[in-house]
């Protein structure tokens, strides 16, 4: 076994300044993907902010306090132009669900995390669908399937990006 001090090539390197805020900042940056000049006809892009939020929370329980999901959700609502309060409620509820899941699950693996993320993404799409229905745009429920599949399949990408940001912010 090689000693850590010998194996580590970079010495005197710690977390970057403001390391504790980078998870929240990265969620806000993901919400701001909406400023990209994409004019989509079907709206099947994933909700990037929610994907990154889930990826952070599944990577670390202490990435940000649970209640930070509420202001981050408000920012997401304002950026996306969705009904104000939708992301606030859904994101905070997802954080609470994950707190409960942390207590209930005995072990974690990639597959289990992906399944948990898929269930929460389904909940988010369903809430969005129901809110659209209340606001006068009642679509058949099968219309949430394509965006849900795309979101679930892009979750590992978000998880990888978040792991890289975590690596960087902690100065590894």
């Amino acid at each position: 076994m090689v000693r850590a001090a010998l194996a580590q090539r970079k010495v005197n390197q710690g977390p970057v300044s403001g390391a504790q805020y980078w998870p929240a900042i990265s969620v806000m940056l993901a919400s701001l993907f909406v400023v990209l000049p994409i004019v989509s006809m079907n709206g099947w892009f994933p909700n990037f902010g929610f994907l990154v939020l889930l990826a952070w929370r599944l990577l670390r329980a202490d990435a940000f306090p649970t209640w930070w999901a509420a202001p981050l959700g408000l920012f997401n609502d304002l950026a996306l132009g969705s009904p104000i309060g939708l992301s606030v409620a859904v994101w905070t509820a997802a954080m609470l669900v994950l707190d409960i899941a942390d207590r209930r699950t005995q072990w974690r693996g990639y597959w289990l995390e992906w399944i948990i993320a898929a269930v929460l993404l389904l909940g988010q799409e369903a809430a969005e669908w129901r809110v659209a229905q209340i606001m006068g745009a009642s679509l058949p429920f099968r219309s949430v399937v394509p965006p849900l599949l795309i979101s679930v399949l892009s979750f590992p990408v978000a998880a990888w990006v978040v792991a890289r940001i975590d690596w960087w912010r902690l100065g590894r």
Partner: protein
Amino acid sequence: MATARPGWSRKAQYGLFFSFLAAIAGLLIGLVLLAVSFVAPKSYAAVRGAALDATAPVTGGLREVTATVSGLFSGAGDYWDAAHQNAQLKRERELMIQRIVEAKAISQENRELKAALQLRERSRTPVASGRIVGSSFSSPRRFAIFSAGSSDGVRVGMPLRSPSGLIGRVMDAGSLASRVLLVSDRASIVPARILRTGQPVISQGRGDGTVDLRPLEVGRNPFRPGDIVITSGTGGLYPPLIPIARVVRLDDDGAIARPLADPGSTSFAVVEQPYEPAAVAEEASARPEDE
């Protein structure tokens, strides 16, 4: 797991507990905000407009870059096979000139007939022009961001059109940009008629870039593939005679059509006055749940 019990520190335990309480409070606040969005959507008009003003200029700037890059490619493509295109365009031009002469004669006749009937001609001056710079891309609703706002005279409820057809109408107006409900949104219902027969129909979005067409009178399916549908002006929100969509497929009692104005490739769009301004005010007060 890490959150179950953060060791023996009383302070850490309290911190975790208060964070949990704050999260519950956040959830409740979110639900209240959402409920307000349902019953009184106008109460967020200012903050939504401000958010729109903050993000839309960035989108607009990026849009210029992508438009320039794609323009370079399509511009280079135009040089390919230029001689053949030139001949074809000349033929089309000859045909067009004939049509224009016919149309001029018809419009003159129309003016004389209207004068004979003493119909009041409504002036249709555009309020503002701009471009579609972005859209909602992660929700079942279909909104687009338009690069003119209330400082240009844009107000909520005004219709938006491009040279090729109707795009939608303004839902939120910031001072620099506005959010437009597209024709293909599920909540967007446009009174229309078939150009070929004049039969009244209703156009409703399907949320995936196409629209549903339903005839107002039950009976035989009046649509044919390729039919053009135009606004009828009924209801007073949309001016009449704006092309909406072309039928692509028939279903049992109606048809599915594709809007003629593609927001993705529209370079310029024009906001017009509501056809009957009173109708907009009436709708705003009568349908408070409409966002």
